[in-house]
């Protein structure tokens, strides 16, 4: 099978799903009405609530949901063969993924832009919000741990990466200074800083880490601390000083690399070299339920519901923009997942993939993407450093955001009981140290599965909230409730399977030293997530069974023309 055919097939599925299924739900079930006033127009404050063009929002939503996860998940899942991974990417997005993003955003849109916690409070139960927010804290910890492990693994094995990353960080800081202090034209800033970052990629090849650090360059601890320190600085500095301009410069590097990779697939037309299907049970676990949590983003991801509710839905200018922005960006993310799958399946022999995977998915991605970029003329060594920078920066962008958020969450959740934790840098440090502990002691494949499980579980909870909202409006809701149950059962099974594996090693004495800490910690976090999710589901089922009130379903108020 040719990789280009797979990509074309995925595009066709995305187009069909977006046009027919998403179109049907948008027009006939949710009944998006361009005349209705959206929260962005009703509560316009120029900041959170701000009517914004759908094209801008499409880019914003896509950038916010597409991090390292669709890339890494697809690469790990290739161990089951390319067909199961591809089918879950296509089927997942078609039947669940877009629905989750779209419904969570539209339900918030019709509820004055309430966040997911507020929706849970309103539609499930008062305690649901607290449980959900505690759930989200553990979930974020797992995100930071899983992405940190990917970064540490990448920088240990791909030695040209560190210098390139440091130059990119410098270019980001310079961009911030040029934008906000020197106030130079943005085109000049872009040319200078992106040029600097591209030169840094070349410099990374000339100055690999072992040349500077010797044997220390192979230390996982060093790169774990590096990733954490990077995110710590980013979390405590003003966001315009470092995090945002770095993301701005990195955006161009990521886009150049990914578009180059897609061009490589269409120019070189590589054939898929990986087997169609390998076996049901691999090292991570059996295909069901583990495949469905290994590929999270790209098929369905709970992270998106946070972005859709707290960010995007408060900026939608019109209800009819919901489908292109919320559903459309999810379909495009699926295409990114398929491209990542093809970089591993078609750009190298399967034996090489298996060998590289031992060093982590970043090594597979770097080799695959550099082979594809080589088809369009980029030298392999340069392409490999560029791919390393891309995967590290995709992961570090999310880690930065997560640590910044965990700082806020720590202050909010325990600040009253422990005044010392009200201090921003100390709260960040606590979150950073917890993350470092997980990175250093956890095995990356288990970490990834736990992150995926927590992510999918959050998705099922968002679908539960969306189903309750549809029911409260007297609309059809089974098409959202059935995927919710599927995701819930699958992820609970995956989390229980993984925590059993982890904790059994602890209690039977098979794990010692740092493994003991890692297995114990990850197993307990996983069990806590399961308990919180079950509590939420129990409250959710009660809410589903409760009568709708004497006056029946509560349709939204009639369309009111005009806005501010």
């Amino acid at each position, binding site marked *: 099978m040719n990789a280009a055919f797979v990509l074309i097939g995925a595009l066709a599925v995305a187009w069909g799903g977006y046009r027919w299924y998403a179109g049907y739900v948008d027009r006939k079930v949710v009944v998006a009405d361009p005349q209705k006033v959206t929260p962005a127009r009703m509560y316009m*404050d120029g900041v959170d609530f701000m009517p914004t063009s759908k094209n*801008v929002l499409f*880019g914003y939503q896509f950038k*916010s949901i597409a991090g390292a996860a669709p890339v890494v998940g697809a690469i790990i899942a290739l161990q089951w063969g390319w067909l199961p991974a591809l089918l879950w990417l296509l089927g997942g997005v078609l039947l669940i993924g877009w629905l989750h993003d779209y419904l969570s955003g539209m339900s918030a849109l019709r509820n004055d832009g309430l966040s997911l916690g507020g929706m849970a409070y309103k539609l499930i139960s008062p305690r649901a919000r607290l449980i959900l927010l505690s759930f989200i804290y553990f979930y974020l910890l797992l995100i930071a741990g899983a992405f940190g492990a990917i970064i540490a693994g990448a920088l240990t094995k791909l030695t040209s990466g560190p210098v390139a990353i440091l130059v990119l960080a410098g270019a980001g800081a310079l961009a911030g200074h040029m934008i906000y202090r020197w106030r130079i034209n943005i085109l000049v800033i872009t040319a200078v800083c992106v040029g600097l970052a591209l030169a840094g990629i070349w410099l990374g090849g000339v100055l690999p880490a072992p040349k500077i650090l010797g044997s220390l360059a192979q230390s996982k601890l060093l790169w774990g601390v590096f990733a954490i320190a990077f995110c710590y600085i980013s979390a405590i500095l003003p966001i*315009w000083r470092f995090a*945002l301009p770095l993301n701005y410069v990195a955006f161009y590097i990521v886009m150049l690399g990914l578009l180059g990779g897609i061009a490589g697939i269409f120019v070189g037309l590589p054939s898929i070299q990986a087997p169609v299907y390998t076996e049901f049970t691999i090292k991570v676990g059996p295909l069901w339920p583990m495949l469905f949590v290994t590929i999270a983003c790209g098929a369905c991801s709970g992270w998106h519901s946070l*972005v859709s509710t*707290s960010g995007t839905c408060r900026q939608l200018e019109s209800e009819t923009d919901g489908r292109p922005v919320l559903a459309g960006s999810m379909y495009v993310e699926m295409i990114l997942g398929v491209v990542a799958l093809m970089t591993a399946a078609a750009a190298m022999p399967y034996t090489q993939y298996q060998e590289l995977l031992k060093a982590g998915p970043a090594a597979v991605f770097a080799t695959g993407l550099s082979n594809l970029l080589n088809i369009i003329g980029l030298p392999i060594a340069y392409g490999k450093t560029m791919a390393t920078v891309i995967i590290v920066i995709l992961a570090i962008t999310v880690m930065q*955001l997560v640590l910044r*958020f965990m700082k806020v969450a720590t202050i909010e959740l325990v600040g009253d009981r422990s005044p010392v934790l009200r201090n921003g840098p100390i709260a960040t440090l606590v979150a950073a140290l917890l993350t470092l502990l997980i990175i250093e002691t956890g095995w990356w494949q288990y970490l990834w599965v736990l992150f995926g499980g927590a992510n999918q579980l959050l998705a099922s909870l968002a679908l539960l909230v969306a189903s309750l909202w549809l029911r409260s409006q007297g609309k059809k809701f089974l098409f959202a409730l059935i995927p919710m149950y599927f995701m819930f059962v699958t992820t609970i099974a995956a989390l229980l399977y993984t925590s059993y594996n982890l904790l059994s090693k602890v209690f039977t004495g098979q794990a010692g030293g740092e493994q003991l800490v890692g297995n114990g910690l990850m197993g307990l976090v996983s069990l806590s997530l399961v308990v919180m999710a079950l509590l939420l589901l129990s409250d959710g089922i009660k809410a589903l069974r409760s009568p709708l009130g004497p006056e029946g379903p509560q349709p939204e108020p009639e369309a009111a023309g005009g806005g501010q």
Partner: protein
Amino acid sequence: MTEDKKGGFLRAIREFIYGMSAHDSARFALKTRAQMEHLFILVTMGDLVGVPLLPPYYSLRLLPYVVPQIATWKRRMLREKDLTDALA
């Protein structure tokens, strides 16, 4: 392709790139400014929401400058928020 459609397509691409690369930065810049402004209004006009911080004389002197923002400020201050608001 007509000139209008061509312009529309190019504008859409430009807006998409802006959305991916800079919209977040613009939002955070606006958020930072809004937070500072709201803090200032809270200090000067706090008694509007039951937090008297400055003597009413100074509040009255500043009132004409703050009036255009009071509605938005009160809405933002009193809107229900939770942790996930910090994410996006």
